[in-house]
């Protein structure tokens, strides 16, 4: 039992710390010791084994007097261990820590209690268990040397009856736990049916009566950047009319962040305002975002696409931020919609992307993205207003056309450092033809001037990449978004919206890659009856 316990604790600590690196960059310094790859399911599976052992051992301890025939004569060495006050204390610390670790892990899985508090507690206890290893095993090693290994790893026939009962009870408990977890389905997301005649406006107001009549599904997401404590509650409602599905998604965000990598004129030229963009992990000067993942596969870790670590693919490049990649390991496609507060909101779209097998490495592409790819577009583009990005400075592609006569317009973009509140009525996008090509002679703007970095070559994307219409509005510390997509788009890079599809939500608070997450997915459940609102509406007609 002790050996299995050791192995499960070590595996869970290592996989858990790797999972924590995603939102705790300081842990990346441990990266060399941590496993890489798809670890969420492994972490949960091993946690179940650990839970089994802890419960079994609890029973074993409670009823040991009945099972162990020779407990009082079971060896002087173990007797001496049990008499050590130090080890008694340390072992009680271990028991308490493991129990709390399992409890907080279960809370995260089942979305009980405030996610942020639970996540923090889970992490601190994991560190205590990490310290427990040298305090417990290390001190035993100092006391007994290599003899200790014999005691731990050599199977003994002592207490044979107790061992058999313990092993049997463990198997029963394990089966029970697996049954509990496996029959516990993903959180249902009811897709209410509405009549085709009901007009749904994708304008972010969500003022259609149907939305008021539906109870939202709440998801506590955690582990992101900013949001005050890295967590935010997302609420989602969904309806469908047989052709299209409509979602109303809202999430708490105290700041409307539209300052997407602004350009700052300095005495040395133009500079991108950033705090991590070079490593593709900007967390200060970035737009708010929301991502939706849809998959036929309901595995943990975003349908099993989250592969953690700097280099989870041995034959592919390491990622810049050390967190990991999204990719599938088979030929399946996972749909990924990304709403971006500046780049796509002004196009009334979500960026329709997908996740598939890792892509080929291209020598000129600095950021390898593995399985994360965009759907094809026929036309339309947003581009960044720099000829080539370097951390040391850039040359803009274009300058506002009416500068500096329209200085009032430019003035609206001036922000104070670390301010994320957007200027009123400013989209932080410059249409391509409202600007002219940059030349040093034209650049008469004063040092300290800030400009948006996003240029629209056209007012929207077109084609497969524009399959998801969306618009969001920020008000009173909350984003409210309406989106729609056809149930079946016909694209091989899209997932059909149907019964049983799993869905994940991730919110970004002015961060590029650091997003919130949740453990159990939502699962689409199509409700056949037409929503009450529609029936009343029909009666009125």
């Amino acid at each position: 039992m002790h050996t299995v316990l050791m192995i499960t604790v070590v595996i869970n600590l290592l996989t858990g710390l790797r999972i924590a690196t995603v939102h705790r960059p300081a842990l990346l310094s441990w990266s060399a010791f941590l496993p890489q790859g798809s670890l969420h399911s492994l972490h949960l599976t091993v946690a179940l084994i650990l839970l089994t052992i802890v419960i079994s051992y609890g029973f074993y301890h409670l009823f040991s007097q009945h099972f162990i025939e020779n407990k009082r004569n079971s060896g002087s060495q173990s007797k001496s261990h049990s008499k050590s006050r130090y080890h008694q204390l340390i072992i009680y610390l271990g028991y308490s820590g493991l129990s709390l670790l399992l409890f907080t892990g279960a809370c995260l899985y089942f979305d009980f209690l405030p996610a942020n508090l639970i996540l923090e507690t889970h992490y601190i206890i994991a560190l205590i268990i990490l310290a427990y290893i040298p305090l417990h095993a290390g001190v035993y090693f100092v006391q007994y040397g290599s003899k200790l290994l014999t005691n731990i790893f050599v199977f003994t026939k002592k207490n044979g009856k107790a061992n058999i009962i313990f092993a049997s009870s463990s198997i029963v408990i394990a089966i029970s736990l697996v049954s509990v977890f496996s029959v516990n389905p993903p959180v249902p997301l009811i897709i209410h049916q509405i009549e085709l005649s009901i007009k749904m406006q994708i304008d972010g107001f969500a003022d259609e009566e149907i939305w008021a009549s539906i109870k939202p599904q709440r998801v506590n997401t955690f582990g992101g950047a900013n949001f005050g404590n890295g967590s935010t509650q997302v609420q989602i409602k969904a309806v469908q009319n047989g052709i299209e599905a409509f979602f109303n998604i809202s999430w708490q965000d105290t700041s409307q962040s539209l300052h997407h990598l602004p350009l700052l004129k300095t005495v040395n030229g133009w500079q991108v305002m950033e705090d991590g963009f070079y490593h593709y992990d900007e967390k200060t000067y970035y737009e708010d975002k929301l991502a939706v993942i849809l998959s036929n596969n309901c595995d943990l870790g975003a349908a099993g696409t989250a592969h953690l670590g700097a280099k989870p693919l041995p034959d592919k490049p390491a990622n810049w931020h050390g967190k990991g990649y999204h990719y599938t390991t088979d030929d399946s496609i996972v749909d990924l919609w990304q709403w971006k507060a500046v780049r796509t909101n002004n196009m009334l779209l979500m960026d329709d992307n997908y996740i598939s097998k890792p892509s080929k490495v291209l020598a000129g592409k600095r950021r390898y993205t593995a399985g994360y790819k965009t759907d094809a577009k026929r036309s339309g583009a947003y581009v960044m207003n720099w000829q080539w990005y370097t951390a040391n400075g850039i040359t803009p592609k274009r300058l506002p056309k009416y500068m500096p006569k329209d200085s009032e317009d430019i003035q609206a973009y001036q922000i104070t450092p670390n301010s994320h509140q957007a200027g009123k009525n400013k989209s932080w996008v410059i249409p391509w033809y409202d600007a002219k090509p940059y030349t040093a002679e034209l650049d008469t703007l004063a040092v300290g001037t800030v400009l948006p970095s996003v240029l629209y070559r056209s007012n929207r994307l077109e084609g497969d990449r524009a399959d998801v219409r969306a618009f969001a509005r920020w008000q009173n510390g909350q984003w409210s978004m309406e989106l729609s997509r056809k149930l079946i788009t016909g694209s091989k890079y899209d997932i059909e919206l149907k019964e049983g599809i799993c869905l994940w939500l991730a919110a970004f608070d002015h961060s590029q890659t650091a997003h919130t997450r949740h453990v159990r997915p939502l699962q689409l459940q199509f409700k056949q009856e037409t929503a009450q609102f529609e029936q009343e509406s029909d009666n009125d007609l």
Partner: protein
Amino acid sequence: MIYRALLLCVVIAALIINVTSENKVEPISVASHWVKLDVSGKPIDNWAGPWSCILDNKTGLIWENKDDSEGIHDGFWSYSWFESKGGQGKEFDSAGLGVENWGDCHFEKDRCDTQDLINRMRQEKTCGLSQWRLPTANELTTLVINYQQPGEPVIDVFFFLTLNVVIIGLPMPISLCMDFINTWGREPQQSILLTEKK
């Protein structure tokens, strides 16, 4: 027992030193037969920019890099295929093959054709070179890669940033856009020039 205690301390200390030391290795670019050349023709790193030309180490050809500067290299301009007699340029001979001044660009008083681009690039000495010409069909096919992202052209878009359509002049106009499409008519297309490595 003292030795074991020391050993334990050493192991813990080594772990702490390893963890606290800066051991992050940043990704580096992989080798490619494409080489970016800056405006003076000097090679730069795969991940550096901006660049004006691309050298193909496989063929020895140097290709023009397109951009969106609204200058002569802008990839959004279109050109009718036109070759002035003897390839000497319109200032020497107005008669020639193809359709003159039928494309769209802002850098010419009249509309644009491929001879305009050739003349401008030769005058500019892009990447320090002055023998710019239209590619042949065979040369054009060397741009094609066997890997394509959805909706992307079958060329390496991380070296050829805004190259969507390529037109060549001899003996008939041919365009390349995701796959080969013959454009036998007068439709102006994007154009790219090349020259040989010295």
